[in-house]
């Protein structure tokens, strides 16, 4: 988990160097959050199953009393907490830089995108034992959105906050949570 947190921190501090983060209006703030901060979801949530990547460790954990599912849920909770801290901090940072936007709504919107991307990765991880594929699929989804996938993805389009509305975000949020839960439960059955 640690290198992922370091990367997230890196991303955080990198932001002002590679894009404008001050004096942004509703639209540009949304753009930054949707296109940049949503990536935090991939970085921080996807490594859920990493510690037990090794088959032997998996077997060992499975033999312990506590259910591996409970363990994963706890880890997920931790990851979500860390993610919220990052996202909230970033929003606070933007506000300090004189960006004007509704904090609560944008927090909700950004978290939804993050959770969706993270959920995608986790779901894939439940089926496929390939680390690279796990990061790749959410990234692929992100790229598809970037490359104008709005018409194909509809409500599940990642960058829907541009208009200042967060109504479509609910789909992302729910889908994301469903995928996370499904991923954890399926992983239990497939030793991989």
């Amino acid at each position, binding site marked *: *988990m*640690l*290198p*992922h947190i370091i*990367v997230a921190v*890196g*991303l955080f501090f*990198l932001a*002002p*160097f*590679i*894009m*404008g*983060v*001050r*004096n942004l209006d509703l639209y540009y703030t949304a753009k930054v959050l949707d*296109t*940049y901060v949503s*990536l935090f979801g991939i*970085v921080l949530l996807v490594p859920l199953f*990493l*510690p037990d*990547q*090794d088959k032997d460790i998996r077997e060992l954990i499975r033999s312990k009393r506590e259910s591996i599912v409970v363990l994963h849920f706890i880890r997920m909770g931790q990851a979500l907490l860390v993610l919220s801290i990052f996202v909230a901090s970033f929003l606070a940072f933007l506000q300090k830089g004189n960006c004007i936007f509704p904090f609560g709504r944008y927090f909700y919107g950004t978290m939804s995108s993050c959770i969706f991307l993270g959920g995608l990765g986790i779901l894939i991880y439940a089926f*496929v034992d*390939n*680390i*690279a*594929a796990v*990061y*790749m*699929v959410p*990234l*692929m989804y992100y*790229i*598809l959105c*970037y*490359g*104008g*996938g709005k018409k*194909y993805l509809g409500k599940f389009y990642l960058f829907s906050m541009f208009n200042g509305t967060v109504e479509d975000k609910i789909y992302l949020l729910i889908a994301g949570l469903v995928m996370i839960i499904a991923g954890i439960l399926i992983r239990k059955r497939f030793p991989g």
Partner: protein
Amino acid sequence: MMGKTLFFKECKEILKSITYYIFLICVAVFFVSQMGSVAAVSKPLPGAESYGWKYSDDEADIMASALDNLLFELSRNSFGTYPIGFYKQVTLSEDEQEEIYEILVELVGKTKEELVEAVKIYGSSMDHSAVESIYIRQDLSYEEFCHAFNRIDKILGGGSYYRDDKIYNHARVGKTYQDAVDDYRYIIEKDHVSGAYARIFADYMGIILGILPVFIAVTRALKDRRAKVDQVIYSKACSSAVIVITRYVAIIAMTLLPVFILSINPLLQTIYVAADNGITVDYLAFLKVILGWLLPTVLFTVSIGFLLTEMTNGPLAILIQGLFWIISVFAASTNLIGYVGWNLIPRFNTVGSYTVFQSIFDDLVRNRIFYTIIAILILAGTIIIYDKKRRGRIHFDRALSKHIKG
């Protein structure tokens, strides 16, 4: 030869890898969604509302538009510069703003108070009319202007478009019908249409080629250990260089193969358009951009994937290359045409604009050579580390991987 057989075997193994298929899907979908929206090159018709823009080399135009942009940035106290090749946003202190106003006073013949007032109104109202009355003095020479603006560039920390060698960037004027026709002729005669299409193809494909290949590389580099065949492979007579290089070249080849195949589509479009206008096509245009423009990006991405995975036995390479990729993509997003700098993924998001392309061509070449050399050096480093692991001379990966896994 060992290498050749090994190469084909590696290619075959890549075909069995799930990351490769995700890669293919991504490339295909991205290509279809992007290139589908490329405007066809067609002969401009007289009487159209707009013919797009071009850089004016009229000094008056340049001075006026540079001033205009400066006033805009001043009104928000937010300036975009590229001191190290990547976009950076500059905010000025009171004193620094003072300095700029002082320079401006000499250029526009208004008092400082008038200037400050006008800019303030401009800033709060976003109404351009507030600064309409501010313009360059008639008697100011272009040299004096550039001299003054160079000073402004220094105040901004350098790397801004107010510097004399880049100041032409401000002067975007609408193209006239004649301009459009000239441009069109350029595309047809010099660029052969294929150049124009090839460049936009390279522009789009570069975006995904700067990140997706790293996944294939990481998967391959982790494969031996996970399959528990690493010790046996180490014990074979084959040299480390041959082992690493054949894997590397196999990935490069398999990565570019679908790109080649996809390029047939725009190539056919090109041939069609060219036939319409009775001119020849440079059939190799796409090959040239794939090898000259895109290849170095892929070389670098795969090299990083190999090196970092070999060093850490974990997926760190994905995160690091991810960072490079994000920087490249975001940093370029404010100027997608006419600037390549040291960007891993050089952008050129337009069909045509041959003259603009010519002006950045040298930069592009330098950029691509740079990344190719770096990629090769990184690969050499990978071979060295692989060999040291093979001889049991490095144990640090054990210590590192404990941290990375976790």
